[in-house]
């Protein structure tokens, strides 16, 4: 997506009460998923996200789930345990959902690049697993391309030695 816009930063709390900022994840590719325990289509995607987290975390990738459950951690914690969710879950609120267009329906998912920018149009509703994979892999590949540019040896002409008189 051209002209990537910055993903709005926010601070929400995780299950331990720790304050977590989206900007804490700068430098990583982030799949930001708005979901809820009562959302059936969300349940279909969660196993994929568990897989992505496991497979790509060492490459600088993270899934962040923002739950929009009105019943809060009383509803979320048992669900996270039952579904063996291995990624960070935060308790969302209306102000954060407004930052992301209102989030009128769930699931709504944003893929964010390492610079903290929304890299693709949001997925509103259930998306295909391969759609997510393509986007994640392309952003993980961006870092590798950038790194390899800097790892190449510089041509001799670009180097200057000694003081100039």
């Amino acid at each position, binding site marked *: 997506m051209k002209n990537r816009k910055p993903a709005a930063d926010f601070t929400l709390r995780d299950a331990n009460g720790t304050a977590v900022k989206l900007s804490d994840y700068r430098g990583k590719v982030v799949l930001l998923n708005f979901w*809820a*325990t*009562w*959302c*059936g*289509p*969300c*349940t*279909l995607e969660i196993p994929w996200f568990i897989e992505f987290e496991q497979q790509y975390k060492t490459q600088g990738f993270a899934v962040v789930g923002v739950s*929009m459950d*009105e019943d809060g951690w009383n*509803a979320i914690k048992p*669900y996270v345990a039952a579904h063996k969710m291995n990624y960070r879950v935060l308790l969302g609120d209306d102000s954060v959902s407004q930052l992301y267009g209102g989030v*009128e*329906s*769930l*699931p709504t998912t944003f893929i964010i690049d390492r610079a903290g920018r929304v890299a693709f149009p949001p997925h*509103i*509703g*259930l998306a295909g697993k391969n759609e997510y994979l393509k986007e994640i892999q392309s952003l993980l590949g961006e870092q590798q391309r950038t790194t390899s540019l800097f790892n190449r040896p510089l041509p001799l002409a670009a180097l200057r030695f000694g003081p100039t008189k």
Partner: protein
Amino acid sequence: MLKHGTTADQTLKVTVVPGFHVNGDKPKDEFLIPLKLTWTGPLEAKSISYPKTEEIKVGNQDLLVLTGSFLIHTNFSAPQTVAPGSTTMSGKLRYQACNNEMCFRPSSVEVKLPVVVE
């Protein structure tokens, strides 16, 4: 019109937008939001009867849902303590709607029921 010491039935017709479903009053999964009608006001809602659900599968989830139009019946009684005359019962129907790809947040719709007590 309702006399003291008697009961009367009220029927609420609900229509779900085509393509969407709402959970029934007794979903299979504890995490799902049930359909629930509540009343406030001077009359007593002695019983509320919800329609039979249909079972559908969304992914690997079996859901008990309602689609299209359906009826919810409430049986009211007027206790002796209720003063004769016009009054209003306020109902709130809580629901949560989805289709096969997305869900909307739980929401409520309010209804007003004018009643004359004799």
